[in-house]
């Protein structure tokens, strides 16, 4: 294992492989600021819910750090899985959607809000952006446990096609309140995976 590449995003903090990214705003505004400064070419970002914005920005920053170029080759698109974990899943989107159906006199359910009440949408957003046609999974757990995450990530390599996993943790309880880390796990890295996750999680209060 060489340098540990990872991204951490919290409501008022953004870290890439140990380096703090400069930003002036916090919460959702920070995500938009990071998007404009480092990504800027995917306007769909503005339609996403907070969970997807966090996962999208974190994945983009990580892929940039790794120096990966998007391409359509089968090797690139079918061998990459996206596997994410969290405890609160789509709770933020759930609450936002519930508000639109709570009162009969003010009842306006919208498909654009409802679709984000599925937490795995963030894995789909990342797959669409990068043309990933491999496995995408979202697992909900009771708490962040490096051993449990490392075990289920290593299980994903049971699929012979999967050569690497864009893996991470993403939680959002309110529009301006989120916690996330992302890292890339290669098939050959599985041995030291739990220790690697612990190192990253020590930098993130989960």
């Amino acid at each position: 294992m060489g340098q540990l590449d990872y991204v951490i995003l919290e409501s008022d903090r953004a870290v890439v492989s140990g380096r703090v990214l400069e930003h002036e705003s916090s919460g959702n505004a920070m995500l938009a600021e990071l998007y404009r400064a480092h990504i800027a070419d995917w306007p769909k970002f503005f339609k996403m819910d907070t969970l997807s914005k966090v996962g999208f920005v974190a994945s983009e920053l990580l892929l940039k750090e790794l120096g990966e170029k998007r391409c359509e080759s089968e090797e690139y698109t079918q061998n990459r899985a996206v596997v994410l974990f969290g405890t609160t899943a789509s709770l933020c989107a759930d609450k936002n959607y519930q508000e639109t159906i709570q009162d009969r006199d003010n009842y306006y359910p919208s498909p654009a809000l409802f679709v984000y009440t599925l937490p795995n949408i963030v894995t789909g957003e990342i797959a669409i952006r990068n043309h990933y046609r491999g496995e995408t999974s979202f697992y909900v757990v009771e708490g962040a446990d490096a051993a449990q995450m490392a075990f289920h990530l290593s299980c994903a390599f049971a699929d012979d096609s999967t050569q690497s996993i864009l893996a991470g943790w993403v939680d959002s309880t309110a529009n301006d309140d989120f916690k996330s880390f992302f890292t890339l796990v290669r098939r050959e890295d599985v041995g030291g995976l739990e220790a690697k996750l612990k190192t990253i999680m020590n930098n993130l209060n989960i």
Partner: protein
Amino acid sequence: MERLIQCIADNVVSPLGLDSLSNYESVKAGKSGLKRYESMGNVQTPFTLSRMDRQVIDEACCRLGIPEGQYTFFEKMLLASTIQAVGKAGIDASDKRVLFIVSTTKGNVSLLGDPAGFPSDRVLLGKAASQITDWFGNPNSPLVVCNACISGVCAQIEAMRALQSGKYDYAVVTGADEQSPFIISGFLSFKAISDDFCRPFDKDRRGLNLGECAATVVLKAADSVSDDCWELVTGAIRNDANHISGPSRTGEGSYLALMETLRCCRPEDLAFVNVHGTATAYNDEMESIAIYRAGLIDVPVTGLKGYYGHTMGAAGIMESILSMYAVMDHTVLATRGFARQGTTYPVRVSPELRETDGRQFIKLLSGFGGCNAALLYRLNGKW
């Protein structure tokens, strides 16, 4: 040597019955749980739904010794199903070598609208799942698979992998969803729901019906195949990388998932493909393309949404169980609601029961987020 994964027990709790066999017999007899409703809570648009009678669940819970007032409807469905399946398997579910995996899309989300006296953290899926592991005294933290409509197939794939790793000997894989105004209003906003009985793969299909169900399989890791056992052979999950709420026009993810499972069987050995078959215009068309591209156009196709509606977290598990019972009965179940071919590629779907000698089947699902999953079950032994 790779461990073989067997399904040793199962249960289905639905409006059609409280165990797998009664469900199978009801479906074979052509019964459906679907009924038309004019409204539910703030939802004032008519829809057709397969709804679990609350009193029937409460009575079942009472018989199974589940105390009143401590569990939500969603948790009661899961408990009623897992208690019966674990009992049938005859395993000690409190052992640390037993893993619980829960498949659901929305769990206790109805508590956001009406907390009904439950603590607010009960809406968290991990918290709801731990009600089940706590009931059995299982020490492992449960894993909740939340991959939209494909969760039930993904949960079985993940259980298979966890067992193959050698860390666990048994996995209890259970799934359910409650159809509250939250989910119904959402699908209505997508204009995906039909107010009439759904018509999978039919020319006049006008949308899906939702449904309530809980289903459980108990999987075991074995060193060799014993006679007359169901083996979970393989499975795969693939993304369309196309759209978050619309299926791929080329059926990309379903095609790739099917091709992966076909590495372990020949099309001519399949009894049938049990499809998602939601009866939306796009889903069924997409599945017909994926089936054609995968070289499965001559394999019988069957879908169960006309009996149960779309049971979301339960679908992948319940539809796998019903498929196992059908294979053991040398039967391809009728696709209720289908009358006239309505997809570009003429998949072999039928409104009648058919005979089969096949001993393997593929269960196929697709869902929001562009996700698709397929798995392969095989009946071993003399049966």
